């Protein structure tokens, strides 16, 4: 009995790696610490009432942001471990299997559990405020989305200490990810971690489309919407077309693994290339899903800090819509070497190059907005300006890659690795950082320190170029991706050392940012106006942080840059308008999203270990939660006028 238990636990828990033992201890200590602090400060009830059951889009946004920053840390540590391993030829810092696990989790976490949730954080925090709404279209579903993402991410991360991490690459191509070559639970952790959070993403896509189409303040026509909101709409349109394909792809892979199917295994007549087509039908649009909101953020920031209306508003909207359609016709460029034939490759080469056109239009519009503007070099603006050259180089190397014949040379080389990091870090990460600095005062009511911010900015930027420019060269020198070590005589050593140094610079940049946040909590410059940047859109018209009903009185919009217009009018009239409050309709908090997602987690865990009864228990729980919600009829309430009056008075607003 004892032997059996020992045997089980040595398979169940990951053993034999000193770093993982360290992580085990760290995880246990952190958990114990959290439990102790919550109990000591008697905060359990507060946690449950204010956060775990909340349906407030702003709080959900903040939770998205915190979890994604945590994931940025984990993915970043993965990156540094990889760069350590590759720094010198014939180096044995990690063994090959561990290295495979790390590049797999690095890619998966950075795209799905860092970029996506950070994007949803902005959706949640900004969109309802920009369109003058009190909430999203489906507040309950919104909470479900968040908790599904959260528990999906937790399930994925658990593989680190229980069962073993996936090691078949971030997109898990079969046959490598099939039962034959990946017999352990790692691959199933991958499938269910992503599947569960993916359902949440799909629901968010539907939610925000409806929010934008149906919840806008009176008078706000589509062509009056702020560009960030437009970018969210474009991104959500891609989400609803791309994510079902991901759901199917992962389900098919699971069917192959669990039911011994033959969709992707050659032995039964299956076709592994079909998996690669399917996953990239989701995977390439995914790139635009995360980058379009970043474009939206840049558009807001450029206009605000050039103190000008955005240049070429209509062409901005148009280009985003074109990108959202074209994004669906480029997936084959990920495998020009598949042998699809010249005509297919030419089609996808042209569509890929074509996507550079609307993107170029946007870059010129940002530049023309800055032209003759009174530019203020604030932190958000710094990141925006750094983004432009970075993205231009990334875009140019992308066009190089999209030339199908040349791609036979670059395919799977470090040139490619450098390219996609350049567009994803330069475009998405810089964009989301800019957005964080920009909306931070709105979220928390204080600004982040400028000096620390500049240190973070420069270490990140210098680190970025030092890290990735050598990789372009390494690609041309023949270094391929996914190798864990190389020989002295390849001549790749020096450039790899430089690249590793750059990666550590970016790590230091991240530390500066963490410091900046802690510093801000204590000493941050408070924002009492609600409009610290002299903004142009409606989110700046309300106090920061906003009261839970957002707008005491829903504004009436007459054109673009609604808040700017209101401010101009107020200057002319010099009179404060008084408006009567009326009771506000709000959704009640609910514990169901949280509990249901725990059941999803249990189901996912059971399916990962192929414990059918655990999975059935989990799925039954999910069904029970859905039924419980269906029978819930009193899920909303009214905030009385007195309470609104009181809240508005306390933040210094006279109604």
């Amino acid at each position, binding site marked *: 009995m004892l032997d059996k238990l020992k045997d089980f636990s040595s398979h169940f828990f990951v053993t034999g790696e000193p770093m993982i033992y360290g992580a085990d201890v760290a995880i246990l200590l952190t958990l114990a610490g959290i439990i102790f602090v919550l109990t000591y400060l008697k905060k359990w009830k507060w946690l449950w009432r204010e956060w775990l059951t909340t349906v407030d889009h702003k709080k959900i946004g903040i939770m998205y942001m915190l979890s994604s920053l945590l994931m940025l840390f984990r993915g970043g540590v993965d990156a540094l471990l990889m760069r350590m391993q590759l720094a010198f030829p014939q180096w044995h810092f990690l063994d090959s299997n561990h290295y495979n696990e790390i590049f797999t989790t690095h890619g998966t976490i950075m795209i799905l559990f860092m970029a996506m949730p950070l994007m949803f954080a902005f959706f949640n925090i900004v969109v309802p405020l920009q369109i003058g709404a009190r909430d999203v*279209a*489906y507040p309950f579903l919104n909470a479900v989305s968040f908790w599904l993402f959260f528990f999906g991410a937790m399930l994925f991360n658990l593989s680190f200490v229980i069962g073993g991490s996936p090691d078949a690459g971030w997109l898990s191509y079969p046959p490598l990810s099939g039962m034959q070559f990946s017999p352990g639970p790692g691959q199933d952790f991958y499938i269910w971690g992503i599947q569960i959070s993916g359902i949440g993403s*799909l629901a968010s*896509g*539907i*939610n925000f*489309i*409806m929010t934008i*189409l*149906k919840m806008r303040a009176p008078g706000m026509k589509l062509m009056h919407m702020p560009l960030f909101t437009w970018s969210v709409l474009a991104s959500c349109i891609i989400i*609803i*077309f791309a*994510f*079902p*394909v991901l*759901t*199917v*792809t992962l*389900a*098919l892979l699971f*069917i*192959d693994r669990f*039911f*011994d*199917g*033959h*969709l992707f*295994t050659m*032995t*039964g*007549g*299956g*076709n592994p290339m*079909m998996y690669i087509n*399917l996953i990239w*039908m989701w995977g390439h649009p995914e790139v635009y899903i995360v980058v379009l909101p970043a474009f939206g953020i840049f558009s807001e920031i450029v206009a605000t800090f050039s103190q000008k209306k955005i240049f070429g508003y209509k062409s901005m909207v148009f280009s985003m819509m074109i990108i959202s359609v074209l994004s669906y016709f480029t997936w084959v460029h990920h495998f020009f070497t598949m042998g699809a034939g010249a005509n297919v490759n030419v089609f996808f080469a042209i569509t890929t190059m074509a996507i550079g056109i609307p993107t170029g239009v946007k870059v010129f519009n940002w530049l023309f907005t800055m032209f003759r503007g009174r530019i203020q070099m604030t932190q958000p603006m710094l990141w925006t300006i750094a983004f432009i050259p970075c993205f231009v180089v990334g875009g140019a190397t992308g066009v190089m890659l999209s030339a199908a014949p040349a791609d036979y040379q670059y395919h799977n080389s470090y040139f490619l690795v450098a390219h996609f990091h350049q567009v994803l870090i330069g475009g998405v990460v810089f964009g989301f950082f800019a957005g964080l600095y920009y909306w931070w005062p709105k979220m928390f009511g204080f600004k982040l320190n400028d000096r620390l911010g500049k240190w973070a900015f420069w270490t990140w930027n210098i680190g970025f170029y030092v890290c990735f420019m050598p990789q372009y060269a390494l690609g041309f020198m023949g270094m391929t991706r996914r190798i864990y070590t190389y020989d002295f005589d390849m001549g790749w050593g020096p450039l790899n050392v430089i690249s590793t140094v750059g990666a550590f610079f970016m790590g230091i940049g991240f530390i500066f940012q963490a410091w900046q946040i802690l510093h801000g909590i204590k000493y941050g410059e408070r924002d009492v106006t609600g409009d610290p940047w002299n903004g142009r859109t409606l989110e700046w018209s309300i106090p920061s942080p906003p009261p839970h009903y957002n707008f005491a009185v829903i504004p009436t919009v007459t054109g673009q840059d609604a808040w700017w217009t209101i401010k101009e009018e107020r200057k002319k009239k010099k009179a404060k308008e008084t408006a009567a409050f*009326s*009771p506000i*309709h709000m959704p009640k908090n609910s514990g169901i999203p949280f509990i249901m997602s725990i059941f999803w987690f249990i189901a996912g865990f059971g399916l990962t270990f192929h414990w059918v009864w655990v999975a059935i228990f989990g799925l039954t729980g999910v*069904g029970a939660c859905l*039924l419980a919600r*269906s*029978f819930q*009829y009193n899920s909303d309430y*009214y905030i009385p006028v007195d309470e609104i009056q009181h809240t508005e008075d306390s933040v210094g607003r006279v109604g």
Partner: protein
Amino acid sequence: MAYATAHHEEHHHEHDEEIKVMGFWIFLVTDCILFGALFATYAVLVNHTAGGLTGKEFFEVPGFVSETFILLTSSFTSGLAVLSMHKGKIKPLIGWLIVTLLLGVCFVGLEIHEFQTMVHEGATISTSAFFTAFYTLVSTHGLHVSVGIIWMISITIQLKRYGITSVTKRKVTIISLYWHFLDAVWIFLYTVVYLMGVM
């Protein structure tokens, strides 16, 4: 004041229900894509039978034709349920919903029976790529129908309890949309999988 709140409430509810129905339409778009991907997979693998066993040897015309008739009839009866709802008649509404879900149960039963026979005769999900794709596609539809049945039972109970209100009205509208959608998907299944399979 009381009047204002009541008026507000009514207005809000109608707006909310309308938004929920529209959102469901978008959900159906995503479900279309999901089935589209599965159909594409099936189309790629339809001739990948490895050992030679094909659908032709297993698909039984009376079986899938009766499944089709049952499902089409259930779509019709769910339509009748919605018509009764618009007339404000609760009893026929509940009655037609029960008929619909019973037909749904028959459909799922027949499908399970069909699968059992096939497995018994040696065509399992791991026989070949073709059969994996077949079982995946058809049972995804079957799973949708099964979820729909449980959902419809829950709505029927709610109708009994609360009668026809703006909330239950919306719920019936949504489930009938869902049911018609599954019917449409089945027509494609019937054509692409079964008819083309036996021809």
